[in-house]
């Protein structure tokens, strides 16, 4: 399902380590995401999935120490503060609290800067976000705190799209959502990827992830233990047994 210029790496990571105190949560030798590609990262609780994407964004609600090389396109971002990584197109929709509860939907969709429209970044206007998620338009004057889990996901993704993402990182968008909403959110990712967006998708729901990703990465205790195309991974007995509940 890969589309357009598959040789161009939007994200390339090497020797990424994320540690909390003395505990190494992530230790990834290499990871790349190509343009227009959706890469899923799956693994059990505590495998380091969130730490991985947070580390890439240089972001943490705790005290994480991140080392390693991170490139967005040709730009090395590992020395940049979070907001400058965001401005270079590395967008994270975090797990948990991802919208501003005291601001309306409309005000949540405010951009802090005018993203550069060169290097092929697609910048969504607020109205385009409303077209993509009509539900948000209906709720534009409601406060963030009044939204359901699915609406918050849409809002988080919508704000990210307005900032002209080159790589969109979603941390467990399916958590707490009804199955129908999960597939709606994930299929929206497919549409966006077809338009050239690259996505790094953290998912616990392996079955749902396999429906949309091009490539799947399995994380265990902070390291990549297996990766491959969606179909290879779906047929892999180890994945099937441990994550899909099949009796292979």
């Amino acid at each position, binding site marked *: 399902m890969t589309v357009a210029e598959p040789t161009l790496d939007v994200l390339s990571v090497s020797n990424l380590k994320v540690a909390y105190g003395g505990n190494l949560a992530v230790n990834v030798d290499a990871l790349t995401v190509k343009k227009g590609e959706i890469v899923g990262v799956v693994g059990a609780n505590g495998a380091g999935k969130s730490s991985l994407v947070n580390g890439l964004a240089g972001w943490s609600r705790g005290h994480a120490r991140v080392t390693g090389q991170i490139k967005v396109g040709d730009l090395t971002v590992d020395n940049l503060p979070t907001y400058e990584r*965001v401005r270079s197109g590395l967008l994270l929709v975090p797990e948990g609290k991802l919208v501003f509860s005291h601001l309306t939907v409309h005000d949540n969709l*405010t951009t802090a800067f005018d993203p550069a429209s060169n290097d092929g970044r697609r910048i969504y206007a607020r109205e385009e976000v409303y077209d993509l998620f009509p539900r948000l338009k209906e709720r534009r004057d409601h406060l963030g705190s009044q939204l359901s889990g699915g609406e918050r996901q849409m809002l988080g993704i919508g704000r990210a799209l307005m*900032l002209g993402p080159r790589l969109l990182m979603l941390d467990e968008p399916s958590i707490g959502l009804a199955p129908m909403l999960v597939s709606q959110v994930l299929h929206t990712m497919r549409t966006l990827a077809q338009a050239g967006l690259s996505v790094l998708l953290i998912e616990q729901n392996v079955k749902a992830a396999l429906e949309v990703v091009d490539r799947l990465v399995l994380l265990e205790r902070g390291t990549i233990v297996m990766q491959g195309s969606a179909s290879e991974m779906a047929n892999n007995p180890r994945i099937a047994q441990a994550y899909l509940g099949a009796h292979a």
Partner: protein
Amino acid sequence: MNLLQQIINGIVIGHAYALVAIGWTLLLGVARLVNFGHGQMYMLGAFVTWWAFAKAGVPYELAIPLAMVAGAMVGLFMQRVMLKATFEQNLVSIMIMTLGFGYVLHGLAALIFGSTGQILDSPWSAIEFEFGELWLTAQDLAIVVAAVMVFIGLNKLLNATRYGRLVRMVAEDPKLAELAGINVRRIYYGVFAFEGAAVAFAAGMVAPRTPILTSMGFDEVIMTFVVVVLGGIGSVRGSYVAGVGLGIFTSLFAALVAPAYTTAAAFVLLIAVLVLRPKGLGAGGGAH
């Protein structure tokens, strides 16, 4: 009638309280910071205005902006020193550091301006309006108008502009604001510069009502504290209501009971409101 005159005084003093408190309101609402050097920043604003006007011959209308620039610089400098503690939200350190800044400002001001009392004799104080037994100066009127305009302006800025929305995002969740691409550090600097400029503006407007001393500041910081807490931490509208209410309360209390106990009475009022409405009059978090 005397009571009506007291109410008019109360309204003027109340607007003065609100105007003096506005910088701290935003500071607390956005950066979750306290500034116990606020009173001395008020003092500095008053003395810079006085110096520019009485000593350097700058017109009063230009002396105030000059004091605001000085106030903003002091604010930026303080924030620069406290930046790490701000990001860590280390309130105890910030409380002590700002208290220390207050004393340093007091010392510097005494060195530069001397420790004798001065009078900021603004041209507007000399213009009086009389209505029968009631009277009011142009300065009083200007304080009320300025306070109303500053509050309306700030409310508009926070709610209807892009910058205001970004400030509210930082107020609610600075971590999430980083992911929205906001340079949080710059917002903190902006808020502290606003605090400095706003309190200097307030000082330039309010100080002509009373003699000024480099040792003043305690009453101002205490009344600001009462206004900010009464209004509901960080609530712009709440601070306005609380300021005006407190002004009317203290001037009636001074006239009808005893002027010596007004600060104590203000605190009794504060405690009573906190028991009845723990979140203050304009309950709700964040800057609004």
